[in-house]
């Protein structure tokens, strides 16, 4: 087994024991597509807000934050 493969298996086992696969995050993360970051596009005027969806509570948060 290569060193890289051994390292990868170490990570996988470690994550499993740490409880990453508990499924909770997956369930809760479904539909979490609200994003404050997006891929930088060369032409900023095109495709405004790609990858970003505003929901009412996000708008409210930013309204209240007022930085």
């Amino acid at each position, binding site marked *: 087994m290569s060193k890289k493969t051994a390292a990868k298996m170490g990570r996988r086992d470690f994550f499993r024991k740490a409880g990453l696969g508990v499924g*909770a995050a997956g369930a809760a993360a479904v539909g979490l597509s609200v994003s404050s*970051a997006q891929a930088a596009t060369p032409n900023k005027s095109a495709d405004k807000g790609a990858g970003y969806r505003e929901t009412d509570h996000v708008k409210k948060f930013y309204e209240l934050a007022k*930085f």
Partner: protein
Amino acid sequence: MGERLKGLEVSEEEQLRAQWYSLLARLLSAPPDQALLTMIRGLKGDDSDLGQCIRTLAAAARATTVATAGEEHFNLFIGVGGSELMPYGSYYLTGFLNEKPLARLRDDMAALGIQRADDVKEPEDHIASLCEMMAGLITGAFGAPVDLTRQQHFFANHVACWAPKFFADLQASKTAAFYMPVGAIGSVFMSIESQAFEMAA
């Protein structure tokens, strides 16, 4: 983030990491709406540290309401006239907002092809934004998935240097009820990430 080709490149455990980052991002960017609260109430956890945190979060979700969680979120993070916590890298690292850590973050974001979304007024070094960025680096939301070395570099320079302290503060806050287990999840997850990056090195 669901293109099948990208999904094939990213292993299951790495996608799980991204999901935990996305969960933290969602919990920290805005108070929960009814749908999220209802879903969290139904979560179950195993006996691992993370699993126990999830159980605590589910219980906290059952004990609160959208209105109460919203108030708590406001008092903790927004608070006109002074919120209890300032979840920004610059603030934790220098005592001020919009400082050199933010400038360094913007440089690294540019190099990675990440930009702040349109209409977002928040500085990019907000903990929720950083969690979204980590998730995106893992899954390839900003281009191709980023290798572990570059992920570790980003994590070390922009997250690990202050987020554990923030999550500890959140856990310890007397104002926090629903958000206390959010802090706990953050603390445990940061530790898992740090340890796992050591293993990959």
